[in-house]
């Protein structure tokens, strides 16, 4: 028997196709295993730091309100700046304002250390990002901070 007849009679096509597929499968599996090997080893070798990282994340999730609480001491000068920024923002007449413009306005109005106090306003959540690159004044926080005066 010769030619295609011989190939068909001996299941040549099936054997060849399966053979190529299995060789590829074997080497692809091996290649995938190898490509992940160094990552798994890294995970194992640095397991303590990864566990710590997970713990830190977990702890953060369990105290959701902590972030909203101001983590810097609100001093009289902070309150004074808050008052001044509040006026500035009202004068800007924009509900969502850009920070560079706020700083520029603060500078032109002669506000002392505008960058420093702007940072404080951000930290105590008086100025809050709107998610699209602009900011707004959080009136409720402002009331809370002023009421502690």
């Amino acid at each position, binding site marked *: 028997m010769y030619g295609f007849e011989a190939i068909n009679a001996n299941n040549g096509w099936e054997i060849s196709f399966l053979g190529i597929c299995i060789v590829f499968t074997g080497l692809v599996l091996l290649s995938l295993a190898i490509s992940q090997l160094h990552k798994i080893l890294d995970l194992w070798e640095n397991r303590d730091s990864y566990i710590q990282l997970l713990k830190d994340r977990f702890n953060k999730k369990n105290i959701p309100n902590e972030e909203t609480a101001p983590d810097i001491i609100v001093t009289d000068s902070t309150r004074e700046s808050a008052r001044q920024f509040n006026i500035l923002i009202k004068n800007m007449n924009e509900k969502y304002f*850009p920070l560079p413009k706020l700083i520029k306005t603060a500078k032109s109005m002669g506000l002392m250390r505008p*960058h420093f106090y702007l*940072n404080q306003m951000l930290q105590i959540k008086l100025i809050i990002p709107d998610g699209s690159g602009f900011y707004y004044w959080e009136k409720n926080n402002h009331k809370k901070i002023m009421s502690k005066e």
Partner: protein
Amino acid sequence: MVTNIEKIKSINLFSNLKKEDMEQVISLMETNKVYEGEVFMQRGEPALTFYVVLSGNYMIHFAEEQSFTLHNQGDIIGWSSIITPFFNTATGTALTDGELLCLHGKKLYNLLKNNPDMHYIFMKKINKIIAEKMAYAKDNEKI
């Protein structure tokens, strides 16, 4: 200025780098102090430096006056230095005094280019940091 290596290793961006990669990255680093109100990166200028925040608070603002602020150690600034066309797309201003870890952008880019694994780890972390930043902004939006 010499920076504590342990402190650098503790930064999330560098935490997964292999010892030899870490050494190469450290060789490109220097720490610089920045002062309140200082503009350390100007939009439209060639992006020469990749910054990692060690301390301090920063504002990054774009052409249309949009901006975001950075307050944590490990935050990154100036990724234009490792992404073509290597021009700053934003201006960086220090809101308070602080310390920035500065990496020479071109050298870092070449290092990453020649080290695909490190490139992958680095870009993955950068993406993650940016994504977290976006998520943070979105979360605040919901408050």
